[in-house]
């Protein structure tokens, strides 16, 4: 393997990792703060992609469509939280898994009713459709570089939001001691809706960033959900920092596994990695809860 190819594969791994991070960030945030496992996170990913595809087709405005689709997905998330999922914060993880498993079935069929079974197009504007030369012998797709940039921006934004702002402090207070936070005048209910909506928006963003390179189709969230769960668990549930590290780790290991190992082993490699890490550190790499 020559240097340009090796470098390209390294970027591929990191880029895939960043993609996984976008998906896992919302999942781990909701889990860390509200203690809720949301399997329907994959459905929000799908809804984001479908909304972006439809809006872009209607308006021809790529960036605006994406921003609007993110807002709409956040709205779907907020409604879901208010109407149903807030009842489940105090329920067992089993009940949470079940209710959100049911929601996956509901959302898949709702999308099939609204958009039909054929996967929908989400093309790229010409500015992002091509590839750029990074060094002699290394052409890289422009849009994948954009994914990298968005992922790093989101990671930075979340870090600042949670560690360095008043909102972040409330969020952390709400997570660790709800009665105390309420007593100090923090409106826990509002914070929870906002966090859930933010998680939904991130899932939607991940879906629409994946849309132009993968198929926008029914059930597109499930395989990604499994990967995001793996990332979340390896990173330590609730830890955004852990999710970032784990996502990059999975991205690189998966990419290398696919080109270096036989296909049978290649598809198992991340699950083997996960089992190994959990056997070694049962609470993941960056454990938040005790």
């Amino acid at each position, binding site marked *: 393997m020559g240097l340009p190819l090796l470098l390209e594969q390294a970027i591929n791994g990191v880029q895939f990792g960043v993609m996984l991070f976008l998906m896992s960030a919302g999942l781990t945030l909701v889990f860390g703060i509200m203690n809720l496992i949301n399997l329907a996170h994959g459905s929000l990913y799908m809804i984001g992609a479908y909304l972006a595809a439809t809006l872009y087709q209607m308006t021809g405005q790529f960036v605006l469509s994406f921003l609007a689709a993110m807002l709409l997905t956040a709205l779907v998330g907020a409604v879901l939280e208010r109407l149903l999922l807030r009842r489940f914060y105090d329920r067992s993880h089993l009940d949470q898994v079940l209710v959100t*498993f*049911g929601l996956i*079935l509901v959302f898949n069929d709702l999308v099939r009713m609204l958009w039909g079974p054929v996967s929908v197009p989400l093309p790229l504007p010409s500015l992002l459709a091509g590839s750029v030369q990074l060094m002699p012998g290394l052409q890289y797709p422009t849009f994948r570089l954009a994914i990298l940039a968005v992922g790093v921006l989101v990671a930075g934004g979340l870090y600042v939001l949670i560690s360095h702002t008043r909102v972040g402090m409330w969020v952390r207070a709400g997570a660790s001691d709800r009665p105390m936070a309420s007593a100090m005048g923090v409106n826990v209910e509002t914070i929870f809706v906002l966090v859930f909506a933010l998680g939904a928006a991130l899932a939607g963003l991940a879906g629409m960033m994946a849309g132009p390179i993968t198929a926008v189709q029914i059930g597109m969230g499930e395989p990604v959900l499994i990967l995001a769960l793996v990332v979340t668990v390896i990173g330590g549930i609730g830890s955004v920092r852990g999710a970032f590290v784990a996502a990059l780790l999975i991205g690189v290991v998966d990419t290398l596994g696919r080109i270096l190992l036989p296909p049978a*082993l290649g598809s*198992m490699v991340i699950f083997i990695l*996960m089992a190994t890490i959990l056997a070694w550190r049962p609470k993941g790499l960056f454990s938040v809860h005790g």
Partner: protein
Amino acid sequence: MADLSLINPDRQSRLLASAQRFVPALVLVVALVGILAYAQSAGDTFLIRVFTRIMIFGIVAVALNFVLGFGGMVSLMHASFIGVGGYVVAILAYHDANLEPLMIGPFAFTGTSDLAILLPLAIVVTVPFAALTGLISLRTSGTYFIMITLAFNQMAYYFFVALQAYGGEDGLQIINPITFGGLDLSQRSTFYLFTLSVLALTLVLVTLLVDSKFGIVLRAAAQNERRLSAIGIAPLRYKLLAFVISGTLTGMAGALLATGQQFISPADMSWSRSGELVVMVVMGGLGSVSGPLVGAAVYLGLELILESWTEYWHLAFGLLIVAMVTLLRGGIADLGTLVPWLGRNVSGGKN
């Protein structure tokens, strides 16, 4: 009838109580015999198939509930045990049909289509698989346990997808009729009764286990592991043994599934199937031994009925699951709590 007055009253009531434990299971088994008799007389062979399938998944649900309801372990890898048991049957039947021995290293095994050999063999294969995965998984708890079992399910799934010699993604057909000793299990009613016997044995075994000291420790471990450790009982060993027993029973059910559908494929062991199994258990109610059997019947029955009504049956099914989890905390048995005057009768059996 034995004269119970000779036994001291305390022991007598305990005996009665433990005999009562078997009543729901007995009622279900009798009902299942009745269904066969009805289907036979009505000539409805499809009904026999449907209920054979329900019983097989009933065994799985009862076994899963043993670790989930009583042991507090939410396993998302039980579909992989079905797959392992099923592939034991399908692979050896395949070698039986093409008369080539199965080579594992220097050892050659001749194939067979006899379940009297295949069922014990399914156990021999499932036990170490369940023990190894259980040992690693039980290092974790809570959500991490759910996720690591999910990972093991996916590993097993991809292993069989990669097993090109035995059909890979396409799965493996069973050509020869499967027997049990001299019994021809391709006869539908014979297979029905055979499955029913395995189900009955499973119900008896799990009931006895739950009532034994082992079961009491297991339930205590599910509630408070630290307290158990404090009084000198290592909960891990109990949980691991329960996990292995449950996995092995599920592997046996997998062997039956492959026999019944004359076919096994990786789709029978996908992670969503594991999720469906958990739904069956919860539908039936976590607290009782035989409840999950009812859950399996309701789940598979609903699937059949909803599918015949609407193309969007996943939507209806999903809404049902959401409604059930939101409104009922104890499965179908809890329906009674919604209707007070019915409640006394229906939810009487569960704790």
